[in-house]
């Protein structure tokens, strides 16, 4: 009697455990499905509303006044120029500093501090970086410029490049 009662409760516990397992694992599958669904939703919206707008004139004509035809040549050109200048400024400094951390400084106190500071820069809000460059450059030059934009991009991109050489397997002890 006692024995059947025990196996009864053990049986029930096993069912509960199996059920919990099934529910928890389904929820984790659901979480992944949610992530994939929203990625799909964003891409679908982009393609549905964006594809019809893509034509040759988009890349060859300037932004028109409202209501007439034209393209986005100036915006595309601006993005390209700013990115290139930004990388030209940021890459040498970023790669040299990264090389210092990986090859010369290694675990010295200075490197530890620089790595920490770099992590702070890496995750600093871009709006704060923009504000910094604006105060330093735009205010002194008295107008907005592609150079100021490029410097801001350089400051945002540099910490990523500082970090990358330190990650290579050869420099690991």
């Amino acid at each position, binding site marked *: 009697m006692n024995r059947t009662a025990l196996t009864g409760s053990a049986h029930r516990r096993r069912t509960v455990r199996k059920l919990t397992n099934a529910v928890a694992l389904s929820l*984790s599958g659901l979480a992944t499905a949610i992530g994939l669904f929203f990625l799909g939703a964003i891409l679908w919206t982009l393609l549905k509303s964006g594809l019809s707008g893509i034509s040759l004139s988009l890349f060859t004509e300037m932004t028109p006044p409202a209501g007439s035809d034209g393209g986005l040549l100036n915006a595309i050109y601006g993005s390209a120029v700013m990115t290139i200048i930004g990388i030209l400024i940021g890459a040498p400094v970023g790669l040299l*500093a990264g090389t210092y951390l990986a*090859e010369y400084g290694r675990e010295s106190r200075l490197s530890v501090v620089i790595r920490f500071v770099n992590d702070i820069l890496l995750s*600093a809000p871009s709006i704060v970086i923009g504000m910094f460059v604006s105060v330093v450059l735009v205010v002194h030059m008295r107008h907005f410029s592609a150079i100021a934009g490029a410097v801001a991009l350089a400051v945002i991109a*540099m910490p990523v490049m500082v970090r990358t050489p330190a990650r290579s397997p050869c420099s690991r002890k």
Partner: protein
Amino acid sequence: MNTVAAIEPRHTAGQRARESVFRGATLVAAILVLGLLGGVILTLILGAWPVFSHFGLKFLTREVWNPVTDQYGALAPIYGTLVTSVLAMVFAIPVSIGIAVFLTELAPPWMKRPVGVAIELLAAVPSIIFGIWGLFVVAPVFQQHVQPFLIRWLGPLPVMGKLFQGPPFGIGVLTASFVLALMVVPFISAVVRDVFETVPDVLKESAYGLGATTWEVIWKIVIPHTRTGVVGGVMLGLGRALGETMAVTFVIGNAHRLTASLLAPGTTIAASIANEYTEAVGDLYTSALVGLGSILFLITFSVIAAARFMLLRLERRALSSV
């Protein structure tokens, strides 16, 4: 003797000179990184000085924001920043941990890579696209379906109902939190997945050997073992959510107002700066915005520093246990 001398590197004077020049250049670049952060901090302090000397610490606790009469208070943006980020974390943490569990423990090998890459792709979507998508797709759905439902069923509840009252605007704090949550999910799940993979197989196998279910292995072995790492990943996500600008600016409504309702338009620090900085006339107005920026920097700095510290502790423990 001779052989020993032969394998010792013999540098020419030219080589040594080039080496020291290169070494010097790398050192200068490294110190420039330090100087850059110093410059950012100095600029923020100098820029925020007028507003803090004008209003004192009351700048932090005043709600009013009126450029016409030159009255500024940071309370509404600070509140909005904290509420949207915390709410985004409430949505994002369970989903990210679910994804990490799926990728490390559940998915068959052929599925791991494509699904993992797809989730990482979500991190590669520029924030402005999240903003546009949030404004044109999420906001209408929220206005027509989600918010009326919340107002009808949760609005009348005591205490909690205050969060769900007012007309369904579509845009507002809740919509911003939702879009933010989607943006940080890939970051948190990537970190959590990586720390889950640091759990020694022996531990998991022992638990399976004792008859544990997959969920029990995750809940009682994997998560306790990686607790600090998971918290660190969540804090990194929080740091991103706090500073996110464009996507939030599109969907939050940009109203300098404190309201209990999550459905009402609000503002965040980053959104206020993005909206007003280039149009700010007058020194006090600009200084108020730079003041907001310094507060944001201080908040994210503390969150990121705490996250790095926790991840570092996990790394040290993983090294010592091997």
